[in-house]
């Protein structure tokens, strides 16, 4: 299961659990606090909530993500967190045993993918290994049997460039971009979307990085072009 090991072991002080299943959040909370000795554990039910929290608590060491929450583009979400909080370990804990999901998470920069079906003992071991610097993947990853299930962007009717763009921006960032193009201020965008201003700033800086620009005017120019090609 080990595919790489970083040099240093990290002590985890502050963590965030992002899962829409309350039962599982409680289970993960207990594992993190009792078995891994993590002192600060916060919970979010959605990616939006996670971003709201992370912009306020930048010292978060560990982010545990479920997959497939509503309004979440997995790859973009993981990428965003990795880009914006480079010191945090990002772990996906999911019930999906789809190889593509695993590969997609790793490609986006996750430090590990743990399958929920491995039970509480397995979860503890996996999280420990990840905190020690191991990149953890499930044992089904090398099974090629299901590789025929790979869904390519072409299969779902997208050309490669659009698909690429859509996969790199979260739905929330697309909304922020749309309002930016319409000329709204950060405060206006925040009000419109029901977010905090710090969350809007966070999404904007992610967009700046994505477009390789340094200010909102340039981002709006790039964004206008992108949105013009967006079928939505």
């Amino acid at each position: 299961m080990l595919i790489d090991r970083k040099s240093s072991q990290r002590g985890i002080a502050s963590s965030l659990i992002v899962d829409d299943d309350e039962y599982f959040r409680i289970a993960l909370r207990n594992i993190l606090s009792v078995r891994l000795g993590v002192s600060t554990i916060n919970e979010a039910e959605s990616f939006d909530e996670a971003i709201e929290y992370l912009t306020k608590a930048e010292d978060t060491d560990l982010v545990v993500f479920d997959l497939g929450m509503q309004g979440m583009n997995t790859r973009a979400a993981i990428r965003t967190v990795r880009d914006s909080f480079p010191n945090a370990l990002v772990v996906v804990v999911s019930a999906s045993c789809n190889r593509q999901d695993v590969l997609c998470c790793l490609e986006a920069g996750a430090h590990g993918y743990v399958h929920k079906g491995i039970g509480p003992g397995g979860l503890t071991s996996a999280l420990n290994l990840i905190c020690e610097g191991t990149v953890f993947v499930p044992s089904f990853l090398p099974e090629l049997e299901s590789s025929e299930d790979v869904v390519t962007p072409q299969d779902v009717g997208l050309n490669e460039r659009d698909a690429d763009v859509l996969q790199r921006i979260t739905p929330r960032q697309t909304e922020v971009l749309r309002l930016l193009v319409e000329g709204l201020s950060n405060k206006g965008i925040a009000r419109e979307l029901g977010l905090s201003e710090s969350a809007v700033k966070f999404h904007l800086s992610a967009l700046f990085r994505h477009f390789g620009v340094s200010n909102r005017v340039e981002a709006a120019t790039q964004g206008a072009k992108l949105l013009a090609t967006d079928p939505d």
Partner: protein
Amino acid sequence: MPLTPTDWGAAADLGVRTNGSDASLRGAEPDTHESRQMTARPFERHAPVKATSGDRSADAADVDMRLDHPAVRVLSVEDLNDNQEIITRILRGAGHRVDCAANGNEAITLLDLNEYDLILMDIQMPVMGGIEATQLIRHADHPRHDIPILAMTGNTQPDRVEQLSAAGITDVISKPFRKAYLLKKIALWTTPDDVGTALPAAREDMMPPNFNQDDFDEFLSLMGPDTALRWINTLHTQLLPSVLGAMDDLIERPEIVHDIVAKAGMLGFRGLSASCARLEQQILGNRALDEFATTQREARRVNDALPRMRQMMNALR
């Protein structure tokens, strides 16, 4: 290859099918029907034993009688004679001793007079119903307040089960039931093993083959019995009924299967978790649902084990 409904009709004996009428038990047990069903379920591990002795005038056609369990004394409480006759015949055929009561009042009188190992309790009866009788027996002063009481009911809706559980019912047998199912439940609750003194693993034969005791112990130690009970109840009343139902309905709700992967896995039901994970991939990939039969088999075994686990958790609270 997709299965046809007849291949997995066996779910009927697990309390997932409800039938409001007590009279629905009538005629539920023709022996020919039973033996056909048994041969259609090769995964049931039975040791068929030919009847050899005893008062078996009515049981000539019984060939799958189970004698791999100790004979016990059962008090059957049921107001309808036809139902009483069927129950009596099944139990005596399996070597058990049976006394009959026609209502809760008679049951309490008989319980004072004789020794019993278990009570089969109808719910709706004249004079005194099953819930009231159970509450009286469960009173701390009653000398037999710890006797297993199995409710026989056509209503297994979650709120009804909760109500029965609150009254002190040990387990629920849904009507109509099958002979093998009834006998298995009786064996489950009369096998010597003091409830509450041991974790479920103490009786491994009661747990599904792919149950991982270490996982469950770890879960229990992390979460405590209250949370464990919540997970068990969710699995039992919200998630498993969908898997034990029709395949067509389940295909529409892959999120149920997804949910079971995580919850069953955390509780140690690895066989069910792994099977649901494969089934989910088949559903999402629009492939043939080859896994469905395995998933149902695993779900049935887990479903059978859950009432006992619930009892254990209640005892630990």
